[in-house]
């Protein structure tokens, strides 16, 4: 008989699962009027979970018959996911009250989706990878369609669901091919197996490479990397804005973490095989993210293309396949979360006479009507464009540095060129805000939580270069733990 599994490595997840169920019961008995309370409790649960993650031992532990792994790479990524999720819940509170979406299931579904992401980050087996991914995706499909009376939101939910199911199918097909070759789905065993046999001729069979490609395609969909990005602009535009903010940060971080773990741990010895895939996806994402965003007039669509581009830049670090590269990816995702949540906070403030507006031209003259908001947006746009001294510059610097060290010169050069093109549309927003005449001013009442989130994230983005070492050291230690195992 198997003995009872050690629960301590999975303590944050267990705590979140139990709290989600408790909050659901609480909400069902108290009714939709208490959504605000449930939202605050959700944020509280995520903060406690983050504390639990941080107080973990920090050494690599596996539990549940090797299905679950907890190491400092996982801890770093989980804290990022929890931070992104908690901030998204905070910015959503007033929105869902205003837009008649006040239902207690909203924060609970966000919490359950976050739980799925935590399980993805900690997956140590192809099956737990898939189960975590589905837990996350299923909650996200519902969140995208949450505004069921709006045609666009329903369309976003349906589109995301159909394409998501297709990508899950590809992922499972790939996983079955890998299982067919190796006879196991466990990451640690796969790593030993490929390290032992992968280099000898004849053992890296086409079947295995086909499996790896399918799994990578499935995951590329989840992080919306080109060529699996088609759903992103429509879903981002159609979904309610706080949900879009959530989509743009938390699931991306979790899926990137999963991608990195999968490629570095079990498939680490097959780096020559998967580097071409990541190289192409990174390059295509950077280029498409930069060029397709130029023509956008809707700011949510623009952010969708911007996120595709950012994923491309983060993947440059992964393409390097080195410890430095992984450090770059983690660092990039950390900065990315802050920039994105802040920008979406500002988008959530875009209201005229109590009605949400989403066009870039609606920002015209923001510097005259809301100078502080315009200043915050300026910081985020500079950071996203990668202009020093904003944090986004350092994020790009580290991934390109890793690419150079791995001798991927062409990728680094093309990436820098793509970021120059991308700078155009970020700077255009600044131009609209500062140099165009205001047409109709945005509403003034901005809630306390929103002010806090925007101020916090913009200060972080602006002042990051004064104290970069905690984040950098954390990322470095986490990347080292991935390569040690």
């Amino acid at each position, binding site marked *: 008989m198997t003995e009872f599994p050690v629960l301590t490595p999975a303590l944050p997840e267990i705590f979140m699962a139990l709290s989600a169920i408790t909050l659901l019961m609480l909400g069902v008995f108290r009714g939709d009027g208490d959504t605000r309370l449930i939202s605050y409790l959700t944020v509280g649960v995520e903060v406690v979970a983050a504390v639990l993650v941080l107080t973990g031992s920090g050494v690599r532990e596996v539990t549940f*018959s090797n299905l679950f792994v907890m190491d400092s790479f996982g801890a770093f990524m989980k804290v990022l996911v929890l931070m992104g999720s908690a901030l998204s819940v905070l910015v959503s509170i007033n929105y869902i009250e205003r837009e008649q979406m006040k239902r207690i299931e909203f924060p609970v*579904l966000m919490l359950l989706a976050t739980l799925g992401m935590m399980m993805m980050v900690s997956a140590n087996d192809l*099956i*737990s990878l898939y189960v975590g991914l589905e837990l996350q995706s299923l909650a996200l499909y519902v969140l995208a*369609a949450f505004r069921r009376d709006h045609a666009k939101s329903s369309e976003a939910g349906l589109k995301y669901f159909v394409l998501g199911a297709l990508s899950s199918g590809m992922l499972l097909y790939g996983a079955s091919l890998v299982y*067919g070759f190796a*006879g196991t789905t466990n990451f640690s065993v796969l790593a030993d*197996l490929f390290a032992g046999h992968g280099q000898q001729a004849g053992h890296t069979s086409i079947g295995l490479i086909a499996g790896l490609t399918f799994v990578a395609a499935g995951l590329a969909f989840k992080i919306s990397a080109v060529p699996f990005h088609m759903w992103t602009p429509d879903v981002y535009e159609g979904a309610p804005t706080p949900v879009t903010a959530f989509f743009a940060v938390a699931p991306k971080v979790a899926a990137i973490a999963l991608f990195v773990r999968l490629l570095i741990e079990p498939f680490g010895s097959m780096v020559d095989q998967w580097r071409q895939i990541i190289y192409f996806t990174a390059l295509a994402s950077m280029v498409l993210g930069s060029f397709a965003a130029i023509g956008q007039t809707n700011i949510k669509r623009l952010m969708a293309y911007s996120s595709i581009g950012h994923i491309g830049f983060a993947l440059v670090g992964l393409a390097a396949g080195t410890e430095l590269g992984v450090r770059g990816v983690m660092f990039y995702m950390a900065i990315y979360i802050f920039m994105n949540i802040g920008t979406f906070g500002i988008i959530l403030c875009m209201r005229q006479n109590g009605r949400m507006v989403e066009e870039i031209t609606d920002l015209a003259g923001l510097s005259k009507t809301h100078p502080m908001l315009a200043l915050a947006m300026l910081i985020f746009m500079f950071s996203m464009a990668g202009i020093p001294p904003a944090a986004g510059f350092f994020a790009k610097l580290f991934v390109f540095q890793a690419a150079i060290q791995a001798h991927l010169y062409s990728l680094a050069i093309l990436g820098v060129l793509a970021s120059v093109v991308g700078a155009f549309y970020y700077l255009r927003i600044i131009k609209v805000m500062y140099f165009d005449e205001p047409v109709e001013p945005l509403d003034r009442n901005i809630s306390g939580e929103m002010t806090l989130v925007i101020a916090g994230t913009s200060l972080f983005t602006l002042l990051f270069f004064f104290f970069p070492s905690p984040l950098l050291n954390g990322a470095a230690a986490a990347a080292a733990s991935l390569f040690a195992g």
Partner: protein
Amino acid sequence: MIVQSLAFYLFAAILVASAVMVIAARNPVHSVLFLILAFFNAAGLFVLIGAEFVAMILVIVYVGAVAVLFLFVVMMLDINFRELRSGALQYLPVGITVGLVLLVELALVLGTWVIVPDLAAVSGAPTPAPDQINNTHALGLLIYTHYAYLFQAAGLILLIAMIGAIVLTLRSREGVRRQNISAQVSRRRDQVVAIRKVPTRGGV
């Protein structure tokens, strides 16, 4: 042995034939009925290879739930299937091409298939001999011990599916008369029954 082979060919032939009929039948209700026939024959194939648990699950879940659900959908929704099908032929060339490409790819993959040498040593949960333990018992031993984590996670996924279905479809309509059991039970006789004196030949 010969009985088994005969049974295999019988099940397989009916399975393929009914699968073709699912997409070829004109009447959508017939399609669903053929689908049920296909499920039963697939279950028969599973029994033949000694996977009785999967066979029973197939019958219970697919025939009992999924096919009946399809039947409901077909009967309740007013979809003009003939119109839907009218363009099907023009997709045939594309469909065949995609199918052929997939077939060639599969052949390429399978043709060069190399099973890893020390397979038995690495596999996580080796299959026990079927004569020592039955399917259900063996699965139970694994699911509730080795894979308890996944079992719990699957439970959470189903919970989300339930919440999602409620969120997306439940709406409170005006003017719907619902049962209010406590009000119904607490009614007293004098509130609802009135005794009238009926005069002779007068009527009420």
